């Protein structure tokens, strides 16, 4: 049995940060020395190549590998600055039909022979695209934001992951706005983890730098330290590898009198 960690990165709802998480975790894990591949299972609308700055280097996809028109090494796109990381698009945007759960299992089996981590960037939704992407996953990260629609969709996905026996399933809470949380105009971290009943692997603040890094095609975790989201993603990668890194507390970010007042107002009186 392989010791490779094959992790599905999914959410149900679209646009909550699956691809951003996949790209940043991929870089982080690779930086720590783990050989890592990110598999773009959202190949109909592929984005992962753009976020990683690899969009001009894709020649083949998993499709050609399975059809044996190229070797796996030819299809893997190595990241220049982070050679421990490779990208493999699952398919070609023009061919939406070919991928089946069996194909997915076949390609992942090949990847598991040579990588420590296989991260699968899942398409939005819970239909065939999701089911194919999930077919070969052993564990999963569910990405959600503290918003009702995203949490509801995450719940659906968690139900599906449970029935497929994928475990562990851990939660990443993205686009957290500490200010809104402390004024109780956004679901709190506890609200979301209680409702979904999943262990929280990490939370990522709303951060403009995410957009800047997308523009450049350079994930935030490619450079040291930096913005809150960069730290959040490298912490998540650390926890994934078993490091004991405390979670950030959104409330701690807001000190001073106003924060103290707010705390006072939130103390339970009966």
């Amino acid at each position, binding site marked *: 049995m392989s010791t490779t960690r094959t992790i599905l990165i999914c959410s149900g709802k679209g646009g909550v940060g699956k691809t951003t998480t996949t790209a940043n975790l991929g870089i982080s894990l690779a930086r720590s020395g783990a050989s890592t591949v990110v598999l773009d299972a959202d190949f109909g609308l592929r984005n992962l190549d753009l976020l990683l700055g690899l969009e001009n280097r894709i020649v083949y996809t998993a499709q050609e590998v399975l059809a044996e028109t190229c070797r796996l090494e030819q299809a893997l796109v190595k990241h220049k600055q982070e050679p421990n990381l490779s990208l493999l698009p699952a398919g070609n945007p023009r061919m939406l039909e070919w991928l089946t759960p069996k194909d997915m299992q076949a390609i992942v089996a090949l990847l598991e022979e040579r990588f420590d981590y296989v991260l699968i960037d899942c398409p939005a939704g819970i239909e065939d695209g999701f089911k194919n992407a999930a077919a070969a996953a052993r564990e999963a990260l569910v990405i959600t934001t503290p918003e009702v629609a995203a949490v509801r969709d995450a719940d659906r996905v968690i139900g599906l992951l449970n029935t497929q026996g994928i475990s562990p399933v851990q939660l990443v809470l993205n686009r957290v706005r500490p200010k809104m949380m402390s004024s109780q105009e956004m679901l709190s971290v506890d609200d979301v983890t209680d409702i979904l*009943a999943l262990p929280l692997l990490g939370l990522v603040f709303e951060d403009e730098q995410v957009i800047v890094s997308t523009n450049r095609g350079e994930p935030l975790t490619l450079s040291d330290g930096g913005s809150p989201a960069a730290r959040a993603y490298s912490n998540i990668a650390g926890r994934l590898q078993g490091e004991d890194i405390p979670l950030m507390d959104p409330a701690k970010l807001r000190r001073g009198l106003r924060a103290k007042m707010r705390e006072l*107002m939130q103390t*339970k009186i009966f």
Partner: protein
Amino acid sequence: MTLQDLIDKVLGRQTASADTARQRLQLVLAHDRSDLNPELLEQMRKEILEVVSRYVEIDLSETDVSLETEDRVTALVANLPIRRTL
């Protein structure tokens, strides 16, 4: 209840939207998870009442049948107060 809740209540202010969000989510997820819509639930409520009424007299104004969910376990909770006959 928190101090903030109390002040809001006294001043008649709207509750914070996070509270509303949490309550709405809990309800909708209970339904999603059990695949029961409000209509089916109502039908089930009627049938349960019918069966139980054959054995005991129930206070119809006080009955409550609802879904509650905690830790991914959803329960059907029926509260059917029995009328005192003596």
